Every structure is written in C-alpha cells, then in structure tokens.
C-alpha cells in the first residue's frame, strides 16, 4: 500500500509570546508538526508496519518549513521519505488553495492508495483541507475515522459520530481523515532519530509542481490575543442564607448593567 500523510507545519504553541498590546510574537516559536497530524502520521506508520509498502509525508507551507530539525522530527515518526512544497507565496493560504497545492504535489508524487489527514490544524482548526482535498482528487473521502484496517485492496474504517459508530468499506485510492483518539503517536527512539537524518527529503517550489497561480481569498491584517479582563476578586464566603442572598444580589446587579 502506498500511503501519503499530509502534515501542516505550525509554530510551536508554547513558545508564542503575547505582548502587552495583544500582538503575538512568533520569534521564539519554532516550526513543528500540527498536533492532530501526529495521529495521521502514526496511523500511516502502523499501516506500513502491518501491510508494508510505501509511506510518504507531505507538507506545504512558507519557506520556513524547509527546516532541518523539523524534517528530522517528521521523518523520525515513521515516514520513509518527505516531500515539501516550501514557498513564501504559500503563507496564510486559505483552505481551498492549500488543498489545491496539496493536490498538485500529490499528483507529482504519482500513484497512491491512501491519503491520511488529521482532523484539523492545531492553530486554525478549520477542518476544511482534508475534505476539500478529497473532492479535488475525486476519491472517496471519509472523516472522523477512529480505526483503519485494510484487506485485499480495500479499507474498512470505523467512523465515530455523535451517537453511533459507522463501519464503512471503501475502495482505494481513498482519503481518510483520522480523529485525535485513533492512536497514541509514538515517541521516536534514538535509532529512529538517527535514521531520520538519512531518509530522503525533497523540497519543491510552486513552479516544480506546476502551480502557477494562486487565488488566495484571505488577507491576514492582524492577529491579536483577546484583551484580558481584570478579575473583580469579589468573593462571598459562607453558605448561610444571607451569604447566598448577597451573592444573588451582586450577581443580578452585574447582570443588570
């Protein structure tokens, strides 16, 4: 089976600093794998172990994703090779353009059986790219998948919905969007990390994959953290009727404003 897992590269969340004026500073935030995509990578790694084949990681984003530590990080988690479309024109791309670029990259990679995506990105969490990519590739697309098994050129998946779990069978090629509880992403061992440095990583530009025009509909003007509201620190203590009455009075005064 030939598997491609799509990965979004996001700034390391814990290193994003909120400045006094609410502006976000990404200076110290290094590029890392979007948390939900770790599950898609792990799902690919497990399928590869079960049925062999080929497992490629694919990411598109601005030039900054072409980062040696990040590449090693991705490749230490199971993929046998990595393909990146790293181009500064891909910054702040809308979901449709992202899906379009991914499609072009996948077509350049060639034949595939299964595309895996995470349920959303850990920064914007639009949950759009996976379904749109499936549509553009014109392959069966299933989301909310919490289990994948394969047999005879087909896959059987469990799709976890609010009140039920569907079991679906699909022909290949297909695109599957996994949930964050499908698996527990592995922690790379030392030999995986060492091996990752020797795995092939290819970096393409937009021209390389034949995307000559982008029609981005989004322009990011500003990103700011919401203003912190000062706590009133008005604490009513005790459980007497008077205390409760006082609490209610205070609450209703505030709500009436």
């Amino acid at each position: 089976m030939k598997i491609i897992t799509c990965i979004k590269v996001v700034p390391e969340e814990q290193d994003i600093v909120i400045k006094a004026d609410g502006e976000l500073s990404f200076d110290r935030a290094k590029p890392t794998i979007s948390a939900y995509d770790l599950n898609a990578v792990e799902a690919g790694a497990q399928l590869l172990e079960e049925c062999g084949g080929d497992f490629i990681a694919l990411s598109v984003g601005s030039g900054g994703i072409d980062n040696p530590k990040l590449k090693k990080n991705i490749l230490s988690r199971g993929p046998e090779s990595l393909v990146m479309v790293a181009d500064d024109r891909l910054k702040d791309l809308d979901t449709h353009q992202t899906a379009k670029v991914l499609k072009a990259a996948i077509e350049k990679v060639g034949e595939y059986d299964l595309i895996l995506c995470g349920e959303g990105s850990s920064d914007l969490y639009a949950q759009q790219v996976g379904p749109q990519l499936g549509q553009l590739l014109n392959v069966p697309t299933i989301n909310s998948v919490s289990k994948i098994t394969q047999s005879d050129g087909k896959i059987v998946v469990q799709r976890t919905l609010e009140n039920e779990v569907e079991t679906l069978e699909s022909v290949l090629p297909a695109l599957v969007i996994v949930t964050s509880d499908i698996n527990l992403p592995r922690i790379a061992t030392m030999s995986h990390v060492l091996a990752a440095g020797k795995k092939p990583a290819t970096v393409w530009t937009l021209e390389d994959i034949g995307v000559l025009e982008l029609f981005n509909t989004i322009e990011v003007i500003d990103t700011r953290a919401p203003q912190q509201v000062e706590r009133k620190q008005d604490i009513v203590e005790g459980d007497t009727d008077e205390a409760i009455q006082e609490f209610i009075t205070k609450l209703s005064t505030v709500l009436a404003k």
Partner: protein
Amino acid sequence: MSIMKIERKRGEGMSNEGFDVIVVGAGVAGNVAAYLLGREGLQVLLIERGNYPGSKNMTGGRIYSHSLEKIMPDFAKEAPIERKITREKVFMMTEKSSIGLDFQSSLLGTHGSDSYSVLRGVFDQWLAEKAEEVGVEIVTGICVDDLIIRQGKVCGVIAGIDQIESGVTILADGINSLLAQKAGLRKEFKPSHVAVGVKELIELPAELIQERFQCNENEGTACMFAGFPSDGRIGGGFLYTNKESISLGVVCTLSDLIKGQKALPQLMEDFKTHPTVAPLIKEGKLVEYSGHLVPEGGVEMMPKIIGDGVLVVGDAAGFCVNLGYAVRGMDFAIASGECAARAVSKAYQGGGYSEGDLQVYRDYLEESFVLHDMKLYRNFPKFLETTPRVFSDYPKLLEGIMTDMFVMNGQPTQALVKTIMKHINKVGVLKITRDAWKGVRSV
C-alpha cells in the same frame, strides 16, 4: 588543540557502525567537547534528554567568558548573551536591613576577563548549533538509561531499546550523573556536598532595568546576598540582570537546609519581599520558575573522572566553585569539556581509549585552572560548614553597628569605637579573629 582535519566518510550506517565519541548531555561542557571533537573530524553523537539543548539546564545567571573565549574567540558578539556584567554588589542581609559593597569598574568588562548574564535555554541551543555546524549528530528528547559495559570498558550507551556503540563516551549528564554511578565512578552524594537552588525569572522592560540598576544598555549587575536569604544557613541569594528580565534566586546547602524551619520556596518568597529586593523587582512578571542541584563540595565530592572508555566532565565531575561573592560553574564546565576533547583527540590518534590512554585528561585539567582552582579552594566549603556565623551572627553584627551609626533618635551617642566594640563583643573578638583567619586561608 591541533587543527589537523581527519577526513572520514559520514552519514552512512552510523547507527550500526557506532560513533567515535558519544557525549551524553548537551549542556555547556557536553556541547564544547562535542564541538571540538566534531571540528577535529571525529564522528560524534551528542545525546540530550531535554527537548532541546538547555531545556533542562539552569544557571544562577552568569558565565565568565575566559574559557569559551579561548575556544570561540569573540563568541559574545554572536552568542545570545544577555548583559555584560560591569557592576558587582555583595550584601550582608538581615530581615530588616542590608549592608552592601558596590563595585563598579570598567576593569570588569575587559575583553577576555569579562562576564555575561545568560539564560541557558537559548545559550545552550546556540552552542549546540555550533556543534551541529561542524558535523556533530545531535539527538534530543532521548534519555540515556545505561551504558554498554564489557569487561569493565564502557563501549557505548543504552537508550530504551537502542544500543549505540562508541569508542569513548563522555559523561556530561549533569550534577546527579546516574551514568557515572552506573560506570562505578561515583558514589551517592553527601548532603553537605550539594546545594539546592531555586530561581525566578522576572520580566521587566530593558529601560526599567537600566534605571533601577544604573547601568548602560547591554550592561548589567550581579548581586550576591548572604544571611537572610538562606535564613542564616549556608547559602545565599543572587540576582543577575538579563536584557529584559531579572534572575533572582536562593541557594542553600542540602545538609543545612533540613535543619531550619523554612523550606526553600518560602525562603524565596521572603527574599522577594525583603525591602532591598522588593523595589528592584516591583511590577515584574514571573515568567519562569526553576530549581536545580549545585555541586558545592569541591574536590571532596569529585568522582573518578577517568575510566576505561569513559570521561566525566562539567557538573557531573563536580567542577564548580562557590566563594560566596562569586560562583563559577560554566567556565569550569567549558574548560573541562575542552580538556576532555583534547584527551580524546590524543587517544584517538594513539589508537585506543583505555583508562591509561585517557589519563592525559587529568594532565590537561591540572595544567588548566580547573583542578588548580578546585584544589586552591578545597577548604572553603568546609570553612562555611564549620563557620555558620558568616550567615547568621555577622549580618546581625553589621546591622547593629550600622544602626547605631546612622539612626539618630536624640539619645546621647557613644564614641564610635565603643559602639563597634559593643557589637563585636556580642559575638566575641576571638571568634571573629579566628573566623577571619580561617576564611582568608581557605581562599
């Protein structure tokens, strides 16, 4: 160190074939050793337990530049240092007062003998990048659990399910070096040989720091406090100015800490609210809280630093000197990393890493300041241990004299000599003379 380059084929099947050198721990000692050996053309693997080099490291705050300067001339121009320290303050402190010495001098900033406040989280990463640039393979987020030992010779490391072989292994895994213990080089610590420190990183705008500490842009102050911060026990408080933050902390010797009433976090809280300290950190934002052990036993606590196929460097070797007015650890770590690299390089050319081949490590340490200074100050930890008055009676003594000198309340004043003698007699002239003599001799 020789600049001979040895051309070797890199990148193929290294995990199977093993490495010339494995360095465990990417603190300053490990990074420097790896960097120098990588530069020599050896195949070096540097393994760090934290997610990035420096993530598990902690310093009070200052690096004396001389030893790194020797290896990377003008490093301070490029490295992420915080401020050049151009002002030194030492305080004796009681609950209500502090009596200080303020030394500001351009002599403190002379190239080659200057010192800088640093934050290890960024500094060690930079140093590791230098090592990576010369071909060192760095693996982070991996904890080395054990050593491969065959017939008493260390042959590599074990991490989880992986075993990686090496000609020689350098242990730079910090003060509580479990690997040195596993290699049979070190026993458990004595509580009197280690101190525990806590540090808060308090964020303040650069201009405000410059105002409060009366310093220029990019320049800063180091302050040491004896007495109150450690509640009269062996230890002290420290303060270093960074670019946009202040490193503030308390260190206390473990054996002495357990004797007191206050736990370390409480000491830290009280220190922060002391009238001398509170205005310095006012309106600051706490952005980091950390704690770490500090090797303070001197040569007494030094493990065996050379074994068959193994060397111990930095904190793991106990290389640190705390004199109260100055604390030195990183310059020792860097110099020991350099000595280890030179020894390994020599042994590599000689063709073997037996205990005998690696003995040159000790020779290099003897030639450098590392063992010289460790030996010179060998009695100082003992002096502090046997002279608790330094941390309790003397700050009070000074407070008494100063109060009588400066507090005017209309009462008839006594002659200055009488005033001073009154306070000195409380402790005893003989004791003071003896302590002074012991103290001076131990440094």
